[in-house]
């Protein structure tokens, strides 16, 4: 309760920076909704869903300092749970013939189903992540990767819920741009409040120095766990929106490439800040779409004697490596965008003076 109040107090004081993040995005959403075509509209929806996934990663990784590869798996859990909940009994008879009979007649409205998808993801996270929250560095990252693999295999073999490795189809396209944009903005605020809450502050302290955080009474393992649960909820929620955006998907949609894209967005922008998560998503989405368009044009106009395939992914991977080499903290490193001078010589001086983490 106290942490919530502090969070809100900080929010009001720091709302100008938050507005700098939200306003341009909201304007983009409104303009796209009013004058953009179908293609731009779909890019915008995909952007907002990616943004939610990246924000969910930021809540865990940015505050605890532990990278997670598992979040796209939790997105998958939210996608499947919400799909099973919104589909009509007829659609389920076709798409998931082995579905548990008890679930066949259940048909919930869209947002409640998505919320339940998020909650299920959060509950699963609560149960499975507690033991790995004690781990650090490489061990921690690898264990989240193992978790992604486990979730993937379960999704691909739980015929009674997911239709196994085959595509699930027959969802209604409920996710429109206003919905995606609204929830995207809501989760920016959530991530911002979380970062500045007492929990966020204590986690960031543990990232700076775990022994020092312990000696001032911070229960690091429990706080990491809480952050993971919150972030798994958002990832699951984003999965539900995504499911009702693409309307047809298979478990493969929640695996390595998607994890790579989300992690790239976060790392390029700067995992430690909410501004970094937002800006990373904007930049990588723009780059991805731009490169895709160029790649398609090259192939279409036969500018090269061969077909170009996968250049987009390769270039993004190169960008990721460059950022990690040149600016390991990401574009917005430690302080939120427009935080004012961080040191006697301003924000650049203090980031330059910092040793890479």
């Amino acid at each position, binding site marked *: 309760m106290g942490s919530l109040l502090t969070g809100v107090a900080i929010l009001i004081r720091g709302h100008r920076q938050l507005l700098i993040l939200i306003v341009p995005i909201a304007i983009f959403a409104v303009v796209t909704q009013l004058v953009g075509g179908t293609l731009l509209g779909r890019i915008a929806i995909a952007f907002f869903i990616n943004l939610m996934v990246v924000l969910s990663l930021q809540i865990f990784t940015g505050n605890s300092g532990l990278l997670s590869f598992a979040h796209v798996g939790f997105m998958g859990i939210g996608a499947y749970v919400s799909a099973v909940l919104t589909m009509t009994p007829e659609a389920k008879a076709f798409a998931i013939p082995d579905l548990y009979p008890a679930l066949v007649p259940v048909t919930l409205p869209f947002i409640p189903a998505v919320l339940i998808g998020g909650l299920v993801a959060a509950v699963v996270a609560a149960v499975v992540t507690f033991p790995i929250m004690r781990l650090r560095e490489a061990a921690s990252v690898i264990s989240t990767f193992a978790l992604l693999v486990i979730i993937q295999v379960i999704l691909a073999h739980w015929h009674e819920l997911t239709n196994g490795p085959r595509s699930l189809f027959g969802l209604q396209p409920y996710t429109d741009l206003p919905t995606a944009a609204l929830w995207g903005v809501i989760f920016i605020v959530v991530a911002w409040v979380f970062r500045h809450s007492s929990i966020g502050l204590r986690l960031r302290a543990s*990232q700076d120095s775990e022994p020092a*955080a312990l000696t001032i009474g911070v229960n690091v393992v429990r706080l990491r766990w809480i952050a993971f649960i919150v972030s798994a909820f958002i990832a699951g929620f984003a999965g539900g929106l995504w499911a009702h955006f693409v309307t047809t998907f298979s478990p493969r949609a929640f695996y390595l490439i998607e994890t790579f894209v989300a992690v790239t967005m976060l790392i390029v922008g700067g995992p430690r800040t909410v501004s970094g998560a937002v800006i990373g998503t904007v930049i990588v989405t723009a780059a991805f779409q731009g490169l895709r368009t160029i790649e398609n044009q090259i192939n279409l106009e036969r500018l090269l004697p061969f077909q170009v395939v996968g250049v987009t992914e390769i270039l993004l991977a190169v960008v990721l490596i460059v950022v990690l080499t040149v600016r390991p903290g990401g574009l917005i490193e430690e302080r939120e965008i427009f935080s004012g001078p*961080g040191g006697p010589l301003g924000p650049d001086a203090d980031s330059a003076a910092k040793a890479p983490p």
Partner: protein
Amino acid sequence: MLSVAQVEARYGAIVALRDVSLTVEEGELVALVGSNGAGKSTTLAVVAGLHRPTGGTVNFEGTSLVGRAPEDVARLGISLVPENRGIFPTLTVAENLRLGAYLRRDGAAAVRQDLDGLFERFPVLGQRRDQQAGTLSGGEQQQLAIARALVGKPRLLMLDEPSLGLAPTLVDRVFELVGELHRSGVTILLVEQNVRRTLEVADRAYLLRTGRMEASGRPSDLRALVDIESVYLGGGPTTSTADAGPG
């Protein structure tokens, strides 16, 4: 208040402490002195719950601390300012101080009042409250580390080498500060290599040598002993990094 009895601690096969006993009474300033590698930091780590002893007892106001997690020890009112100062460099000065206060349950108004008091005592922290703590100078960081411990209103404040690596004038300032805190009623367990200065401010002192309690008593009793010690140790602050303690 604090009683450490017959504690043994190891790092793997290396015995860092053997049969170490000490007590701290309420309101006292007790010093723990000795050269590098004597086990001073290890003793503090054992009390703080950061290092589990292999033998002996540690009691704080009748509660056993052995096997307790560091966060639980902190909750009992024991605050450690570690050797490397233990500040959070990417957080602002104000955030560092806020973290020091979060275990307190006596309300935001009381915390704010104490913070104002601290900003008076450490004006430089007030001027730099929105600056990242990592951008402060060494002396300022040491002040921040002590201030952060004080916001938590600890029942026992443990300072690990607060003067380490500071310029001589700042060393003076740190010892002045420790003396001030003591006079204002804070119970302090001070670990130092700067034996001469430490014995000037302490009520009682313990001398550790290679993991054993060599001597204890009033500073005046220890001074003679320490002088002999410093002769064959080369005297003054050594630069060796052979300390078996953590960090």
